[in-house]
C-alpha cells in the first residue's frame, strides 16, 4: 500500500456558535487525486485553510510526510511542499503573468533575500517561469498584467503559481468555479496531466468533473467526513446520496 502523504486527525474548528469542522479525518495517499465534495457550507474551504495553515484548528493534529505540522507557520508548510490554488483567485494584479510566476519560482528557489540582483532581468528565474507560462498556455499573455486577464486565464495562472513552487501536494479549491464549458474542459485536461506527478486534493462543485478525475472521494457533510471511497462506490453509497446527491 502506498504511503500516506497528508493525514488529519480529529480536526475541529468553530466560528462562534458555528461548528465548521468536527473531527475531520482525512488520509491522502501519495500520488492520488483525492476529491473533497459536499454541500455548500460543509466546511470544505475551512478544511483547506486548516491544511494550509491560514486557520489554526481548535483541536486535532495534522501530519504531512510523517511530520507533525499542526503548529507550523504558513510559509514553512509551503516550503515543505504544500501549495494552494485559491477559490477566489488571488494574484498580484500589478505584476505581469510572467512576474507572478517568477515570484513563485523565487519562493521555490529561496532567493527572496537577494538585495542587489535585479529580479526582472534574472535569466534563470525567467526561464523557469516561462516553463510554467507555456505549460499553462499563457505564452501570448506573458507580459500582460494579471489584473487584465480574463477569468479563465486567471484560473490558469493561479494553478501555474501553485505548480511553480514544485509542491509535493497541490490543494485546488474549486478551480472550475465560474468557468464556461470550454474553460472547464481545458482545466480538466490540465489536471489530468498533473495526476501522478503531484498529489492533489481537489475541492469542486462540478460533480461530473470530480467523478471523472478523482481516484478517491471524501464526502463532507456539516464538517464531518461521512464517507471516503472510490468514485463508483461513492455513487452507490446511500448515506451520500441522501445527504448530498439528493437521493437521485
Amino acid at each position: 500500500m502506498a504511503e500516506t502523504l497528508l493525514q488529519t486527525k480529529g480536526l475541529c474548528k468553530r466560528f462562534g456558535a458555528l461548528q465548521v469542522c468536527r473531527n475531520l479525518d482525512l488520509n491522502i495517499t501519495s500520488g492520488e487525486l483525492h476529491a473533497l465534495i459536499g454541500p455548500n457550507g460543509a466546511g470544505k474551504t475551512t478544511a483547506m485553510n486548516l491544511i494550509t495553515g491560514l486557520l489554526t484548528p481548535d483541536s486535532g493534529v495534522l501530519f504531512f510526510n510523517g511530520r507533525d505540522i499542526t503548529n507550523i507557520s504558513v510559509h514553512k508548510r509551503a516550503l515543505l511542499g504544500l501549495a494552494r490554488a485559491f477559490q477566489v483567485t488571488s494574484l498580484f494584479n500589478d505584476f505581469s503573468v510572467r512576474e507572478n510566476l517568477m515570484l513563485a519560482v523565487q519562493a521555490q528557489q529561496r532567493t527572496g533575500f537577494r538585495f542587489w540582483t535585479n529580479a526582472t532581468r534574472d535569466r534563470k528565474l525567467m526561464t523557469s517561469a516561462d516553463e510554467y507560462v507555456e505549460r499553462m498556455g499563457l505564452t501570448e499573455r506573458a507580459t500582460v498584467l494579471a489584473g487584465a486577464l480574463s477569468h479563465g486565464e486567471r484560473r490558469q495562472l493561479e494553478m501555474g503559481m501553485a505548480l511553480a513552487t514544485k509542491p509535493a501536494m497541490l490543494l485546488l479549491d474549486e478551480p472550475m468555479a465560474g468557468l464556461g464549458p470550454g474553460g472547464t474542459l481545458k482545466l480538466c485536461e490540465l489536471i489530468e496531466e498533473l495526476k501522478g506527478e503531484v498529489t492533489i486534493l481537489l475541492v469542486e462543485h462540478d460533480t461530473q468533473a470530480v467523478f471523472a478525475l478523482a481516484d478517491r472521494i471524501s464526502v463532507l457533510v456539516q464538517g464531518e467526513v461521512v464517507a471516503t471511497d472510490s468514485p463508483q462506490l461513492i455513487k452507490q453509497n446511500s448515506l451520500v446520496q441522501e445527504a448530498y446527491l439528493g437521493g437521485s
Partner: protein
Amino acid sequence: MPNRKTILNGIGLLFFLLLPPVTQIFGQEYLLSLFSRILIYGLAAASLDLILGYGGMVSLGHAVFMGVGGYSVGILAFHSYESSPILSWPFVLAGTENALLAWPFAVLVAGIFGLITGAICLRTKGMHFIMITLAFAQMAYYFFVSLTKFGGSDGLSLYNRNTLPGIDLGSDVLFYYLCLAVLVIFLIVAHRLAGSHFGRVVSACRENEQRVQVLGFASYRYKLACYTFSAAAAGLAGALLVNQSEFISPGIMHWTKSGELMVMVLLGGMGTLVGPVLGAATLLLMEDILAMYTEHWMIILGPFLIIVVLFAKRGLYGLLTETGGNNG
C-alpha cells in the same frame, strides 16, 4: 533609446548640479539653504516611499527616525562641547563632532530603533498599523521634550557643523553638494533594492500578503527588513538636517512632520522613489513662495494637493513621465 523617465531624471540632476553657480551669479545664495533642505527632505520622503509605496505600510511615524538620527548627532556634539562622556558604563562613549563617526552612529541608532518598533508595529495591519506607528512617534516626541538636559522642547543648538576630513561642511556650497551626493547614492541603492528579488517580495506583500505566505515567503521578515532599512535612511536625513540648520528640537518628530513626509510622497508619486524628491521640492517651494504673499498659504496648498492626489494616480512624477496611453 532613453525614455521619458531617464530624460526627466537627467534634467533634474543637471538642475541640482548647476544650482550653486547660478545662485552665486545672481547673488541669491540664500536659496542654497532652501535647496539643501529640499534634498534632505527628499531623502527622507524617498525612504518613506520604500515602505509606503513599495511595501504598502502606511506609517504615520516616519519623522521620528529623522528625529532619532538628528538627536544622535546633536547629543554627540553636545557632549563633545562639554567634553563629558555620554556613557561611562558599561563602555565609554565619548561625544564627537566628526561626521565619519557621528553620521554612521545616527544611521545605526535610527536603524535599531526602526528594527525594534517595526518588530512590534508589523504584527498589526491597516488602520492598526497607522495608529501604532503614530503612538510610537508620540512616545518618542514626548521623550525628547522631557530631556531637559538637551533643551527639552526648546531644542538643542550646534555651535557649528560636524567636521569631515577634506571637506569643509561649514561651506554651504560643499554641504549642498554632499547632500546631493548622499541623495543620489540613496536613490540608486533604493532603486536596485526595489527591483531585486527582495524588492519583488516586498511589493507582492503590498498586494496580497497572505498569498505571499502561501507561496512560502516569511512575509514578516521581508517587511521588517524593509522597514529597518527605511528607518536607517531617514536617520541619515535627520543627521544631515541637524547639520544644515545647526539646530534640532522635538518638533522635527512631531506627527505633523510625518504627515508632511507622507504628503511629499503622495504629491510626488508613490512607488517611484524619484517622485517623493519632486514632492519634497514642490511642497517646500510652494510653502516658501506662498508664505511671501499670505500667511494663510495652506488654503492654496490644500486644494492643490487634493487635485493632484485625485487626478494623478502616480503624483506629479507620474504626470510628467507617463504618456497618454496609461495602462497602470
